[in-house]
């Protein structure tokens, strides 16, 4: 199963993904974060804003991912984790994080990012590190938004970040609950 997701991700990235210049992407993201920092002057507000932007991206991106692959709705949370890592991250960022640190109840896992293109050329000022700026927090929002479209309400956050001096970057994904499908309002 895991192998299969890897193949789907590779295939989609190779054949169905429109590539853009990585530096343009990195510069654009960097410039955006700089602007947010200027505007909010408060790093946790910036984190929140990045998460919100990510969410708005994620709710669209998931359709794009599903349209470019032969994937169907996942049957369990562990499959979901694999798809995020091997198809989602591969298709949109060309990296594959490691899925790790499952909680005992199988409702939480981590994505360990050895490589995150958004971070390239980025060095945070000490104040930003001290005050907890999560530079790539947009990724958390993307995951959260995408999963909501698949009926999963989640909490997604950075727990470790290389830009803040940690040895790896780790995004924690926690399933809060499955969302019920809406039913049509009954006529009186």
């Amino acid at each position: 199963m895991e192998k299969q997701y890897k193949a789907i991700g590779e295939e989609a990235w190779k054949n169905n993904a429109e590539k853009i210049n990585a530096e343009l992407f990195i510069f654009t993201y960097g410039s955006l974060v700089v602007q947010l920092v200027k505007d909010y002057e408060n790093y946790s507000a910036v984190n929140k804003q990045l998460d919100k932007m990510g969410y708005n991206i994620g709710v669209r991106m998931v359709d794009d991912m599903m349209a470019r692959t032969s994937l169907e709705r996942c049957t369990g949370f562990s499959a979901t984790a694999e798809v995020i890592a091997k198809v989602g991250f591969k298709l949109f960022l060309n990296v594959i994080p490691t899925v790790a640190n499952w909680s005992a109840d199988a409702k939480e896992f981590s994505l360990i990012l050895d490589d995150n293109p958004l971070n390239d050329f980025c060095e945070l000022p000490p104040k930003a590190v001290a005050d907890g700026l999560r530079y790539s927090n947009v990724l958390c929002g993307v995951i959260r938004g995408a999963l909501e479209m698949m009926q999963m309400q989640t909490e997604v956050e950075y727990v470790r970040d290389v830009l803040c001096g940690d040895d790896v970057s780790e995004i924690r994904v926690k399933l809060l609950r499955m969302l019920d499908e809406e039913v049509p309002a009954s006529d009186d």
Partner: protein
Amino acid sequence: MEQVYVKLELIGFRIGRRLAERFAPPNRRLTDTLDIVKFVCKDIWMVMFNRQIDNLKTNHRGIYVLQDNKFKWFLRMSGNNGGAAAARRAQPYIWLPCGIIRGVLDSFGVNTVVIAETLGLPQCTFQIKVVNDA
């Protein structure tokens, strides 16, 4: 809206400066403004949109008009009832590239004002006006 414009333009400006730094031709220094504008039309547009500007015009007095007939960010934009309303709503999406163009030129020491408009999606025209051309 004014604020949105200022912010997007500034974000673009910073991107433009970095793009210029990164993609400027290593073996020759661009000094002539027309050459720098051509660099935007060809190299920078290639990096950003995988295509070049379709048409470049200048009055040789500091005004350059760049026309992209299939501006990438407009390719999927559409509304109801023909283009007028959609074109209006598309306006904020060209503030960032305006900033990028200004940023690229600025990093070569050319101070400009860049504005853009669309006559109908997905067409887009950028106008560069040099301020105090040295």
